[in-house]
């Protein structure tokens, strides 16, 4: 490893970068019509965070209503609209695009040492489609919203009187294509734009994760698009596809839906795992443990993800034989997930660990994903799932994976690459406090829900038995703590934009290529094509007092 060629030193960390991607062009149009992957990534990030705020407000409204059995402050129909909106916004507008489209767009080409993704115009089109999808959701709200649950189960979704079902279906259809185009773009970029010397096994693990994710996006999303189109056709033209009153089959809908939506879970979690691989390795400053196992497990998860959709349907009326097969295959997902967790923990062993905000999010992920993953065992096991299916146990399980893992990784990644994206540092102390608040609030909210569920509290309930109230109260208090943590995060990030310290090129001591270009990166990312080394070789990095960042030093100690 020591014989690798040295890299050029990071350019001019101590003089403010005058021409970077943020200052290169000015004006609204220069952003909204940009072909620069970094600007598109930044716009995605802002849009996703705004949607996260909206989805989060719905979550708090739902939790507040659940403080007491019966009516607390809204009626049953309003509650049904709110939990549906919370789910739909969080899944389709936030988590699915959050890591690949927002952070991935910014980081992927820079990690590859490339100037941009393979198809910059398609990339911009994806973002415009995302906007169109979001607009459709808003139109749906104006037209009476929808109360179907984010799963759109038929025949409820084709018979409900809520007026916004068709617009939101159109929205999700469009968002699907946004996701497909991003996926295609990433696949081609990783195949074609890797620099000389970067073989598949010299790729940063985040790229392996984005690649696996892109495969799922391209292969699974069309199924969702077609399924929802069929729901719209049934609603508008009264053609019986899923509604038994017109000769359809509602269980068929569930098969179609979960054939996409289970892989979609991995569209959310696999890139999160990629971020965690980066965060843990970079902040431990140590060769990642078991690179190949982690890389292959991403691909394994992507493949298994297509074979387990039936575990959402153990009580749906699906045959017992199918349930048995799906249960068996579902367990197989546990193996690559466990492998990854053990590898990350071993990466800490004999590392040089800097405990800062991104790392704290990484560690939070390790614990929350452990809980989220292990409670998957309760649900993959057939007889316990029959008891737990469609209760709060399931709600808690998927929040541990979707939020405690995917979203926490997204926030961790945001902190990890924030100096690179904005050229500013944030308040480290506040960052750690906010992360701790989120971690505590999250566990108070959702661990309680495991107990609610195993005691028999069904999900999507407006009213409930008095014996469940104590759990609901604790859970709601947890959600307020979490909201406080995120509010604090928003405050210090805004403060960082306004008056944050200028960021050095390499504040954490990372060895992947994005830490070699300036913060924020120049318009074309690299002034000259970077030389590719081992993405996890930290031996040449040295702390530089003057710039308060890390610089690469050639082994014979001659500074370039």
């Amino acid at each position, binding site marked *: 490893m020591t014989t690798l060629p040295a890299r050029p030193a990071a350019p001019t960390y101590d003089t403010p970068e005058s021409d970077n991607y943020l200052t290169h062009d000015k004006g609204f149009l220069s952003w909204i019509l940009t072909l620069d992957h970094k600007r598109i990534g930044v716009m995605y990030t802002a849009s996703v965070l705004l949607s996260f705020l909206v989805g989060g407000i719905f979550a708090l409204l739902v939790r507040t209503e659940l403080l007491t059995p019966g009516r607390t402050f809204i009626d*049953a*129909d309003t509650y*049904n609209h709110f939990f549906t909106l919370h789910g739909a916004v969080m899944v389709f507008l936030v988590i699915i695009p959050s890591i690949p489209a927002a952070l991935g767009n910014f980081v992927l080409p820079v990690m590859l040492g490339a100037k941009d993704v393979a198809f910059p115009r398609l990339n911009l089109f994806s973002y415009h489609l995302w906007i169109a999808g979001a607009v459709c959701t808003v139109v749906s709200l104006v037209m009476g919203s929808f*109360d179907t*649950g984010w799963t759109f*189960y038929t025949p*409820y979704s084709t*018979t409900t009187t809520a007026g916004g079902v068709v617009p939101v279906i159109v929205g999700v259809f469009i968002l699907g294509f946004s996701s497909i185009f991003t996926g295609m773009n990433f696949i081609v970029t990783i195949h074609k734009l890797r620099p000389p010397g970067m073989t598949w096994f010299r790729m940063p693990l985040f790229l392996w994760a984005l690649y696996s994710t892109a495969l799922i996006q391209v292969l699974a999303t069309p199924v969702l698009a077609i399924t929802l189109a069929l729901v719209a056709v049934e609603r508008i033209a009264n053609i019986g596809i899923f509604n038994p*009153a017109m000769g359809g089959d*509602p269980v068929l809908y569930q098969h179609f839906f979960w054939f996409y939506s289970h892989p979609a879970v991995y569209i959310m979690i696999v890139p999160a795992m990629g971020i965690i691989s980066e965060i843990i390795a970079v902040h431990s*400053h*140590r*060769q*990642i*443990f*078991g690179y190949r*196992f982690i890389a292959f497990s991403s691909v394994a998860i992507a493949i298994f993800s297509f074979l387990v959709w039936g575990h959402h349907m153990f*009580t749906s*009326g699906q045959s*017992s034989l199918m349930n*048995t097969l799906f249960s068996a295959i579902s*367990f*197989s997902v*546990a*193996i690559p997930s*466990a*492998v990854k*967790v053990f590898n990350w923990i*071993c*990466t*800490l*062993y*004999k*590392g*040089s*660990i*800097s405990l800062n905000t991104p790392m704290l999010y990484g560690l939070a992920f*390790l*614990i929350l994903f*452990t*809980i989220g993953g*292990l*409670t998957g*065992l*309760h649900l993959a*096991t*057939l*007889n*316990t799932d*029959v008891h737990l*299916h469609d*209760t709060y146990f399931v709600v808690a399980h998927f929040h541990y994976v979707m939020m405690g893992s995917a979203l926490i990784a997204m926030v961790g990644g945001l902190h990890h690459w924030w100096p690179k994206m904005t050229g500013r540092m944030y308040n480290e102390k506040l960052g750690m406090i906010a992360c701790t608040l989120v971690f505590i609030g999250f566990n108070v909210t959702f661990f309680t829900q495991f*107990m609610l569920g*195993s005691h*028999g509290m*069904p999900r*999507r*309930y407006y009213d*409930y038995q008095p014996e469940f109230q104590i759990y609901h109260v604790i859970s709601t208090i947890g959600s307020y703590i979490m909201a406080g943590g995120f509010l604090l995060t928003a405050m210090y990030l805004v403060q960082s934009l306004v008056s944050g310290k200028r960021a050095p090129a390499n504040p954490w001591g990372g060895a992947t290529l994005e830490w070699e270009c300036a913060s924020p990166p120049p318009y074309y990312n690299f002034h000259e094509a970077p030389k590719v080394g081992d993405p996890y070789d930290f031996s040449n*990095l040295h702390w530089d007092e003057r710039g308060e960042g890390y610089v690469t030093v050639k082994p014979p100690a001659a500074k370039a």
Partner: protein
Amino acid sequence: MMSMLTMLTLAQAADGPTPPTFWMPTGASAHASNVDSMMWWINLIMWAFLVLNTVLTVYFVWKYRHKVGTKFRTDGPDHNGPLELAWTVGPLLICIVLFVFGFKGYLDVRTPPKESYDINVTAYKWGWQFKYPNGAQSDDLVIPAGKPVRLVMRASDVLHSCYIPAFRVKQDLVPGRYTYLWFQSDFPTGMDQPTDGHHLFCTEYCGTGHSNMNRRVYVLPQEQFDAWTTKQANWLEEIPEEELYWKAGPKLYARCVQCHSLDGTKGIGPSWKGIWARVTGGEGSNGAFADGSTYSGLIGAGKQYATAEDYIRASIYNPGEHLVQGFGNVMPTFKGQINDKGIDALIGMMKKLDEFDPKTGAWLKTPPAAAPTASAN
């Protein structure tokens, strides 16, 4: 592990329902002890790995903390074949064991004994109807103790799901197909106090009243159960003739309401509004049928139906014979489900529709002084 699992199961085959624990609610069926011991084992695995991972993580982060400005360690191993193989194969073995035991328990849940007692269940927005073999019906589920019970279930509108936490069973009800669920509870609960019995929940989201589809499950000793079903089956016979139309009418109409409105709204079937005028030669009696005939052409002395009552009864027992124009042949026959006294009650209700709430079908007048509680049925 196997022997311990068996021990745990046997320990719970006691003489009463298992009390609630930290994780599980009270258990009152044969399935419950299976599920609970499975939960216990998986929880053990969960805690073991959670503690292991957390302790290692925290310890490593503390032990290998980095001081800014010092050199990075380079002595960490970058892989370890045997170790990685071990933590691939280890979890795999655990998963196989869990799958096998879960599968065995699941087979029991899905395989009702041959001699089970069948109850028909219909779920609708937003309630349940339980029908017993002798014709009895109820809104809450009542089952005999110590006997395998099979629910044969269907949904009349959207998806619903029948969940009884104390029995650890759940099954979706799907419109257009039958599904089933079976369980056996050996412990009578009584049905007199509000706290008696177990919860029954709907666990498939079905709209506004989803969370209010909760009902009770009562377990009665066999003799008590038999007495209850007999009484329940004969509820109609015990109502005096003069109270029939308002006591029994709305209750029977609850089975018609999904297709026939009272306020003139067009449903799957024609509204009852003005029906008595139509069939007795009044307003609307020239209304056409799909086969070209009219009310007044069909009903009357010397015609197919000598009296209006005749026509109503024929429409309930043999609905497809003359279809009102604009409606399909979709109504099932109620022969064997509604007897002559029930027909009398419905006809009585049709004659005095203005006494009933046009939306809910509830009787709007107060009962005569002789009957202080109108809801007794």
